[in-house]
């Protein structure tokens, strides 16, 4: 194969990925209302709640501990520099702003992408292999509404919640550090954090986490549906799901942060 052929082939591969993601995006979003409570079908909502436990609640310990550790690392690294200028109290700003704007949503998204993008693609991939997806279609049900939509709704609701909780964990890690190093009280710490964070930062975080949730569930479902052949294809698809969703999360993070920066929304007041 010539170089040109290789470039062309991988380019059409990416284009196909992008096209498939776009088509799947719109088909699922049109069906989302059917999953909502009250206006939608009761059974779909119930399966969405099940998914919320699988995607959200059970990821909480992992995301929380990851944030706690990262918060502590950030405080340690920041302190070693800031101490030289006698500005240890700025560790508060570093941790609080760093987590609300950036690390909270990112670390949560990475934790969930490792756990759930793979789980989703494995589950759907297995359903494809065992003809369960065919069975859904032959029964006259819509696989998009029946299988995909509850997962989307679950991810879109739980990831922002997880992000808030893990951000709190990260910020709390900063307090632990300061309480031990300069005996700062919790009241002072909370006050300092409240002063350094803007409402805009929190909105920014939530917007980001919704984008990340979409990417994770989206890539997981697509890779699962693409499984053809036997069980070994399921293994490949789970790997692809984790790799692609992690990559896209970081890419989207860069894009979102750049947009916010260029629009001047991220400048401190």
């Amino acid at each position, binding site marked *: 194969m010539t170089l040109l052929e290789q470039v062309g082939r991988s380019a059409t591969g990416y284009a196909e990925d992008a096209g498939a993601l776009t088509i799947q995006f719109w088909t699922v979003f049109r069906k989302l209302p059917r999953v909502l409570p009250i206006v939608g079908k009761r*059974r779909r909502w119930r399966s969405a709640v*099940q998914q919320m436990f699988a995607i959200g609640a059970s990821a909480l310990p992992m995301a929380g501990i990851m944030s706690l550790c990262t918060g502590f690392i950030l405080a340690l690294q920041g302190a070693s520099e800031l101490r030289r200028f006698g500005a240890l109290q700025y560790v508060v700003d570093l941790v609080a702003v760093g987590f609300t704007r950036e690390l909270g949503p990112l670390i949560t998204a990475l934790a969930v992408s490792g756990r759930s993008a793979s789980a989703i693609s494995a589950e759907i991939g297995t359903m494809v292999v*065992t*003809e*369960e997806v*065919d*069975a859904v*279609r*032959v*029964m*006259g*049900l819509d696989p998009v509404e029946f299988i995909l939509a509850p997962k989307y709704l679950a991810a879109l609701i739980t990831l922002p919640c997880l992000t808030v909780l893990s951000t709190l964990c990260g910020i709390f890690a900063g307090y632990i550090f300061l309480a031990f190093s300069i005996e700062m009280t919790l009241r002072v710490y909370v006050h300092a954090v409240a002063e350094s964070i803007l409402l805009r930062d929190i909105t920014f975080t939530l917007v980001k986490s919704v984008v990340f949730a979409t990417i994770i569930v989206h890539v997981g479902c697509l890779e699962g549906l693409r499984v053809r052949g036997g069980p070994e294809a399921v293994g490949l698809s789970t790997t692809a799901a984790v790799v692609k969703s992690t990559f896209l999360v970081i890419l989207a993070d860069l894009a979102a942060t750049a947009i916010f920066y260029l629009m001047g929304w991220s400048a401190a007041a």
Partner: protein
Amino acid sequence: MTGDPPSIPDPAISIRDVSMSYGSRRVLDRVGLDVHRGEILVLLGGSGSGKTTLLKHVLGLTKPDSGSIRINGVDITSCSPSELAAVRRRIGVAFQAGALFNSLSVEDNVALPLQELTRLADSTIKLMVWMKLKAVGLSDAVGLYPPELSGGMRKRAAVARAMALDPELLIFDEPSAGLDPIVSAGVDELILFLKRTFRMTILVVTHELESAFHIADRVAMLHQGRLIAVGTKEQFSATDHPRLRQFLDRQPDPVAGEFAGAITSQLRKVRI
């Protein structure tokens, strides 16, 4: 031999000139076949004969390149999605591995089509589910989950789910695949029982000769994408068609050795 028996009007499934290719490989070549009401038609074929592809076409999961497939008079290759859904409601399908939903109990699996597609009360659904499970001999496995079932039980549960909406047409994909001879014979009896009791039209896709001749009213044989024979069991056993003879006598292919070899090795795998 390929001619249909005296034509009965309005067949349940009528396949006409269906062709399908993957790339340059012809998987189905102008296949034409009728399944009459109330009969058990067994579609025989070796690995790679195109029988699975034909089945997917009949279920409307894939569309042929050309030709038409009418189920109860509706051409499912060209009808609207809502018409297709209406046709599918009158078909029950028992997939090869059961295709039961692992997250639901046996009872909920059978109840699913009723809950989703009818407005029946929960108590009515419960009763209907129990009746279906009783019919397939699984009434004591109500609360079990699919991974806890044996191969034969899973197949029975799949049949119960396929019958949930009281279909006129039941389709079986490889009903004896992966089962030992005794359990497999049990599934054959179940198929005959369903035909006798509910007067269903049944289409069975398989490569199992013995089971095919035991349950079939008529047998059709696919080979390399072509329908090479359709007829009653007696016509089949008396045939002098070389390909058919070879398949029935389980002789390996002298030239290529792949066709019959693949089938016999598969048969052996299943038998052990």
